[in-house]
């Protein structure tokens, strides 16, 4: 990036094209930096280290959900059940600890199993029953959201709540479970660490391993991938299971953050996750769903929302800003870029 501007003199490529190329490549990064510098200089509160960490903590849930959506988008699909799964994870973790009085590790296990099962359900509908991705995961989203409410008869789960058998819930969120959100490893908050580890893991998985490579191949041309001798169904199923697991992890952080089985948790996660995955596509002009881009998109969203909140912009106006930024990122990917964006609509 640094040397690039200096070497613009060559007259071979028209300047407009170069400018366009730069915008497509670095547009999202530039917007993120601009927002960061703007809020850093304008708001004193924003400069506090705790604020910056809270930006990353905020970003962690959305980034991990977004990485789930990204994985589904890599195979040319989409996962709309992300928010529902995360919400169910909140309720399941609360039930396991509060109602069934289990330790945090059991709750984590239960949530991950539930996430994988949702992924398998999506995979079954999409791969075996051949329902288009968007429609299948939309249906599963409703089922999952409903199931969550059925489990707890529509009640938020908290310690001491009355149970149907007349007794009271004796369990509580265990400290080690709460540490998923409020713990630190050295100076780094646990959710930020989880964000970094998962981003890195997904980056390596998607770009460096053969499994990730095959997922991208399916997104590029499923028939060519099948005729290259690959079991496309199995890999598409894998993508949805990973997506379900990531949604579950996002739900775990959310659950530890809220500290109770809030039944409305996760409601806004789906749209944010899809938004950051779409923003992420345009990072570095890749025009492909990718792990770094998605996490960066989530951080950008975190900076924006935190900054706007500190600046006193009401939450409903924040959505307008979110939407405009998404549109701008999509313009980078779909309008300005000469590379065809590889988002295959599921329907």
């Amino acid at each position, binding site marked *: 990036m640094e040397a690039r501007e200096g070497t613009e003199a060559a007259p071979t490529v028209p300047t407009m094209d170069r400018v366009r190329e730069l915008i497509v490549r670095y547009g999202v990064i530039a917007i993120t930096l601009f927002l960061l510098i703007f809020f850093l200089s304008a708001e004193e509160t924003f400069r506090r280290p705790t604020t910056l960490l809270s930006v990353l903590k905020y970003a962690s849930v959305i980034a991990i959900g977004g990485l789930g959506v990204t994985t589904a988008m890599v195979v040319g699909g989409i996962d709309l059940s992300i928010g529902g799964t995360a919400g169910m994870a909140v309720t399941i973790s609360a039930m396991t600890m509060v109602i069934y009085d289990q330790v945090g590790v059991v709750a984590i296990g239960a949530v991950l199993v539930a996430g994988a099962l949702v992924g398998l359900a999506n995979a079954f509908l999409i791969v075996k029953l051949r329902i288009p991705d968007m429609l299948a995961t939309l249906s599963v989203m409703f089922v999952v959201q409903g199931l969550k409410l059925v489990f707890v008869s529509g009640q938020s789960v908290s310690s001491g709540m009355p149970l149907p058998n007349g007794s009271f819930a004796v369990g509580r969120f265990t400290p080690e479970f709460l540490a998923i959100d409020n713990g630190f490893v050295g100076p780094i908050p646990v959710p930020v660490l989880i964000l970094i580890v998962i981003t890195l893991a997904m980056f390596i998985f998607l770009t460096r391993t053969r499994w990730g490579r095959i997922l991208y191949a399916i997104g*590029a041309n499923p028939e060519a991938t*099948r*005729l*290259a*001798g690959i*079991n496309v169904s199995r890999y598409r199923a894998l993508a949805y299971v990973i997506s379900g697991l990531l949604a579950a992890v996002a739900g775990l952080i959310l659950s530890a953050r809220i500290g109770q089985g809030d039944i409305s948790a996760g409601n806004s996660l789906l749209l944010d996750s899809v938004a950051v995955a779409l923003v992420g596509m345009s990072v570095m002009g890749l025009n492909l769903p990718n792990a770094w881009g998605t996490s960066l998109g989530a951080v950008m969203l975190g900076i924006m929302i935190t900054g706007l909140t500190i600046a006193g912009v009401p939450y409903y106006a924040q959505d307008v800003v979110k939407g405009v930024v998404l549109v701008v990122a999509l313009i980078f990917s779909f309008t300005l870029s000469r590379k065809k964006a590889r988002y295959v609509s599921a329907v």
Partner: protein
Amino acid sequence: MDGPAQQAVVSLTDVSMAFGTNRVLSGVSMSVRKGTVQALIGANGAGKSTLIKILSGVYPQHGGEIHVDGSPVRIDSPSVARSLGIHTVHQRIADGVIPGLSVAENLVFDALSQPSFGSFFSIAKVLPRARDVASRLDLGWSDAVLRRDVFELGIADQQLLLLARALDQQPRMLVLDEPTSALSMAEVDRLFAVIRGLKEDGVAILYVSHHLSEIDTLADSLVVLRDGKIRLERDRPFVWNEVVRAMLGDQVLAEEEAITEHRGTEVRLRLSGVRLHARSAPQDIEFRAGEVAGIIGLLGAGKTELARGVYGATPFTEGSMVLDGAPYAPRSPGDAVRHGVFLVPEDRAAEAMLPGWTIARSVSLPFLSQMAPRGLVPRGAEARRGRWVIDELDVVASGDGHMVDELSGGNQQRVVVGRWMAGKPGVFILDEPFRGVDIGARAGISRKLRALAAEGAAVVITSSDVDEILQGCDRILVLGDGVVRSDTYIRETTRDQIIERMSEIA
């Protein structure tokens, strides 16, 4: 009203059409006469569909002139075509029927969209008209059938529905594009009876088909289109090998002595009782190690069915295979690849290309599990494999990081072929590998395939071009209507004999 020119319902004069610099039709002049069936024949890409689209008003920007009943016309849109009495029944049935509407509504759809129909609709208003339309073809559909959703009809009945709908408009000329592709034998007979009836009513029919036997039964005259030009015009009786020659082109083999022949001895793959078409007889075919076998046949001969069956992409419904002495029954391409059986599919863009992928990645994709047994793809080895393909097949590219979609067609094909050669094939099938590929790439690929066979692979090439097969193969199997019509080594046959075999009428 006695000269043949007077009888022409529709005549084309010097019609041409280009997409950018690509001329798809040039100087086409032909006419379709009242009460006759004019057949239009041509291989893939000859320009048939373009001609049909010009006649049905889809491409108003063509060059040349069209006369209907002697007066010049401009067919600017499909509705103009219809008002001139030119009706087309397209090959793709799905483009014609409207799902979600009843059979009756589909039958009277043209009237339905006219203002004269009025604004209000009821099935009772539609039914009598629909009965009327259906009776034109003696479809004999009851009111219960007419009330059903059109998709409950079989594909053949949908085809007949479209035909009935076209007939209801009292066409002066009817264009039928591959009308039998979805029909069974009995339905074909029914369609032919209808066509004969139309002839008697004085309708001019343009019949587009690649089935020579149908044309033999129906047509009064035929024109052959190749590379956008008319190559042959004949009235009955037709001389079929002349027709096939015109279809395929008859550039003479450059050098007879260029033919080299290697006979394989050991059978690599044996097919027994394999049925290529639902209606054709089971076939036994052997492929031998050490030779390049060419499978030649016209469109629809069963070449792709054979290739995809051996590769497990569309498993055979009947019969069995033995590979190197062991039973071989691939249920998926993955099975075939594990057995060293590879396929270069027919449609490169749809079935082999990964847009936005580099050469190195495209090349390694089928072999990732060998190259990366523990998961991490070794980038060095991948790049080397990419460069090997570039060197081995003389791909013109900047390096292994070159995007495949930015390569020329010939170079794309070299990459697709080279990818499999890098994996040491036992049986290597290439379905129409030279279609849309320049001569240079064709010769280069051919040479590599011969070298591969010399190393012990069984290579199988399918083609509908005699010269491709003659230049590239040791052995020639002529396929027609799903049946092997002849199986000879190249020195035992001649170009004329091959064409003779290809032109046989089932």
